[in-house]
């Protein structure tokens, strides 16, 4: 049987991680192709609803990444984001969402190699976890049965 290829959605900021990922490419560093990168102006713009949407649409894992603390293009977007992630991650954990499937990282524009490592490590760990069937099951609209609570 073919190896499970997880779908990973990466939400990254324009100024650091996106540039970092670009550097990974221009540096000819090979890394797993399971990741779909979505570029945002800033990590501060990465609404937690987007993360849930990614799971809805069939993602098995998520990477959220931006500028290192004190390096934000907008001074404090990543600090705000960090606070939000702390709370959101805890709420996910509390509602039983598998937080092992959401990877948070700081990757600067100079860290092309780190980006490759993050993606490879995430793909490896999600591959071990398998498809996110729990979420996929509820995200699929019930075929025959209607919901009666």
């Amino acid at each position, binding site marked *: 049987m073919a190896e499970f290829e997880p779908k990973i959605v990466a939400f990254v900021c324009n100024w650091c991680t996106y540039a970092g990922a670009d550097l990974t490419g221009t540096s000819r560093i090979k890394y797993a192709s399971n990741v779909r990168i979505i570029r945002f102006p800033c990590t501060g713009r990465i609404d937690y609803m987007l993360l849930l949407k990614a799971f*809805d*649409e069939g993602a098995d894992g998520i990477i959220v990444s931006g500028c290192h603390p004190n390096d934000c293009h907008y001074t404090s977007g990543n600090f705000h984001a960090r606070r939000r992630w702390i709370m959101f991650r805890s709420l996910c954990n509390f509602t039983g969402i598998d937080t092992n499937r959401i990877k948070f990282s700081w990757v600067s524009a100079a860290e092309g190699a780190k980006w490759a490592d993050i993606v490879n490590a995430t793909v490896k760990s999600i591959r071990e976890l398998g498809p996110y069937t729990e979420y996929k099951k509820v995200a699929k*609209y*019930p075929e*025959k049965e*209607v*919901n*009666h*609570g």
Partner: protein
Amino acid sequence: MNIDKRLVRKDSLEKLFDILKQNSKKIYAPSEKNGKITFRDAENFKGISTGYIQTTQSSKDITFPRAEKILDYSKSKEGMSVKGIDLKEIPEIILWGVRPCDANGIGELSSIFNWDYKDEIYNNRLSKVTVFGFSCNKSDEYCFCTSVGGNPGNTLGSDILFTRMGDDGDYLAEILTEKGNVIVSIAPQLFEKSENSEKEKYLAEVPVRFNHEEIKNKLDKFFESKEWIEQSLRCLGCGACAYVCPTCACFDIQDEAHGKKGSRVRCWDSCGFSHFTIHTSGHNPRDAQSQRWRQRIMHKFSYMPERLSVYGCTGCGRCSRACPVDMNILENLISIQEVTI
């Protein structure tokens, strides 16, 4: 017409349940969760709640589900393809433990879904439901079925109506329809010949609290009354009353899209929500909660009797019990009756 009345021993009810289950019937019966009673797929007889005055939610969820897919669609280069739901997939269901007011509500709900357009999906679901009504032997201050033409032993809407004769007594079963006969034919030994066929003395006493004809006539001239504002001040505008109601039929059509494909879903909605009537322009014809509250009462006690010749209220009292801010429909109707125009 002579109603076929049978005796069902108190121990026979469980046997009936088991036999129906053995005949692979799907049974929805009231069961409890967090102290609230709702109709759910019943696995075994023991899980069925008894002794309740009224379930928290009505049984309308079975014929008019809170969320129900009506079609799937997908877009491609070749064009759009649409696939309706397969009506044959709708399961046969026995609705067990329905109170007479709820059973009555099925008829009121049906009149809405057959007013002009005959709703195929609704009618199909309904045709596959067999209703086991259970008469009420107790009531509370929120009950007012007798004020809207019902009664605690009303046979309307049930296929079989069970009336318990005494607190720990046997049941009188009235076999009311062909669907009821089918059930009897599955377990004829449990439906014995009945000697005693008087049920009235076992029924709850629900006093008549208002005259619904009088209310209807009054509402015709009541549209601009200040009473609506006074009554609705504390209303928070949630949909609890509409969602527990056996006859509220408002729905919203939603497309749950996933890229190029998706499902069209019919979901419950409520005239109590502020956004229910909002236009694309931003204008909202029912801008204040009082107008929305008026709509709720008018629809049930004026518009429906006028257009469909049925009332949109069965007097189950659920909305009053469920309301987080004690909007009591009975109290409000009585005060409408008392106000002079």
